[in-house]
């Protein structure tokens, strides 16, 4: 997919287990098809104070970590640890403008990662993520600056917090992106009525998990109809059936995050097995044959 040779379609989503190299290696050993790093910026960034997370029993969680990361000077050490474990590593970067994206991508390219994912979609960090990734013209400018700088495949991770995710994906494709990942978290808020205040220290956060699966599916569906490059589906995947829904909406690979919090890192092995069983049961010889299947007229 997109010039990447993945051993299976399930990738560790950025932001989960990705601050330390040994955690990335652990996700790989648990069966992830590839691991995506925490989004890395120029310098060390502590993120927001706690509470950074609110859990919902049935439908996922809300977080505002605030893009904590050790910074591009320190982080290559962690990537090296993951690579020594044999992991396929995709480097995620965030930045405030096209020039900074290009500079950081140029640096992470030399660390042994096999692709670069651009965080154009974090919904709760001032000056980053969604704030630079909501306008198709901005997305096109950023992706083009990165594609001009690096040789590796560039994946644009786009936001669902917009009127038309397909338009953002199209802009990324025009600029030379090798793939689109969709979606990042959906902007959300939790309030404690006793205390009469937002729960998260930052106020606004990003919702993930089961609740956002229909949102992710809709975005992947829209994007698949607009672009020719591969789509990586992410948002609320916890079972093989969830994964197959994304595949039928148009995804060629999948990212998994919140399910790890709920079910543990062993979720990778289970998802791979469940998806294979579902494909077999439906008579698909290969995953590729099911990609976009829901777009075809019913037989």
């Amino acid at each position, binding site marked *: 997919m997109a010039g990447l040779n993945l051993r299976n379609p399930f990738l560790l989503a950025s932001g989960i287990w990705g601050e330390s190299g040994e955690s990335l290696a652990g996700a790989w050993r648990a069966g992830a098809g590839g691991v995506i790093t925490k989004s890395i910026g120029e310098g*060390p960034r502590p993120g927001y104070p706690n509470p950074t997370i609110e*859990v919902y029993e049935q439908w996922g969680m809300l977080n505002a970590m605030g893009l904590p990361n050790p910074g591009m000077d320190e982080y290559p050490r962690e990537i090296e640890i993951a690579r020594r474990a044999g992991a396929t590593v995709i480097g995620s970067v965030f930045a405030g403008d096209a020039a900074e994206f290009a500079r950081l991508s140029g640096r992470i390219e030399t660390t042994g990662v096999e692709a670069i994912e651009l965080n154009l979609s974090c919904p709760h960090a001032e000056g980053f993520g969604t704030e630079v990734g909501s306008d198709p013209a901005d997305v096109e400018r950023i992706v083009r600056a990165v594609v001009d700088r690096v040789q590796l495949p560039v994946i644009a991770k786009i936001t669902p917090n917009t009127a038309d995710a397909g338009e953002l994906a199209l802009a990324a494709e025009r600029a030379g992106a090798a793939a689109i990942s969709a979606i990042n978290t959906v902007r959300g808020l939790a309030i404690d009525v006793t205390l009469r205040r937002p729960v998260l220290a930052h106020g606004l956060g990003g919702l993930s998990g089961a609740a956002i699966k229909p949102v992710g599916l809709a975005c992947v569906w829209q994007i698949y109809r607009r672009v020719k490059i591969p789509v990586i589906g992410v948002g609320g995947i916890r079972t093989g059936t969830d994964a197959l829904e994304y595949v039928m909406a148009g995804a060629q690979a999948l990212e998994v995050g*919140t399910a790890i919090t709920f*079910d543990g890192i062993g979720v990778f092995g289970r998802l791979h097995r469940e998806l294979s069983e579902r494909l077999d049961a439906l008579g698909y010889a290969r995953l590729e044959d099911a990609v976009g299947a829901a777009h075809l007229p019913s037989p």
Partner: protein
Amino acid sequence: MRCYISETVALSVRTVVEVTDTVLETPSTITLRFSYAPPADPGQFVMVWLPGDDELPMSLSYTEGTSKGVTIKAMGITSRRVLSLRTGAKIGVRGPYGNRFDVSPRRVLVVGGGSGMAVLAPAVERALTGGAAVTVALGATRSSELLFRDRLRTAGARVESATDDGSEGARGYVTGLGATLLETERFDVVWTCGPEVMMGKVVAAARPKGVPVFCAVERHMKCALGMCDACALGPYHVCIDGPVFPAERLTSTEDFARFHRDSSGRRVPFGPPAPG
């Protein structure tokens, strides 16, 4: 055993409770008691949110029944603010999280420094209730900072103390006292909690004796759910793989007693900063 929230997901939903009592245990350490029904075991921790301020991992210093408690030493800005909390203050609580001490061994040596005794005290009480003989090596800077000395004695533990200034018990670090006890007496297990460098010394002292050591580790935490990676320690996450670890797991990592991670995930050496 890892503790994933799929097994205990209801406990991860935050509850706002009132502080029912506060006890100034030492000049720098306070206990907050609050009513919180979920069952807990010694070793486990809760995330305590001080509204308008931070949310911190705190070991349960009282685990039995519904009246739970946490005991905090004023170190950072937030924990200093805890000292000013009064009965009736509202705090957010989620948990308990993490694993627990196995309280079945018969002859237990406990080595606690600083606020480390907060997590060890309920384990000592449970072990004593189960008929174990417990010796506690209790350390602090000075006599007035020896945490839970009277509580432990009342429960039936033998308490030996060490103070940096010699104002009570042996003069010097509690690790020296622990090493002496290991040298002269027989124990089935050692439990320790305190600064990581201190626990590293306890582990080193017990190794030649062949006595297994369990350490309750404290690391920077954010989610407490095995997601955010803030508490990564080698291949482990302290929130779901710990906080109680058999020593050999810790010593197999590069970081134990040498590096912690700050809130950005950077590895930072323990101890005073290098000159310059």
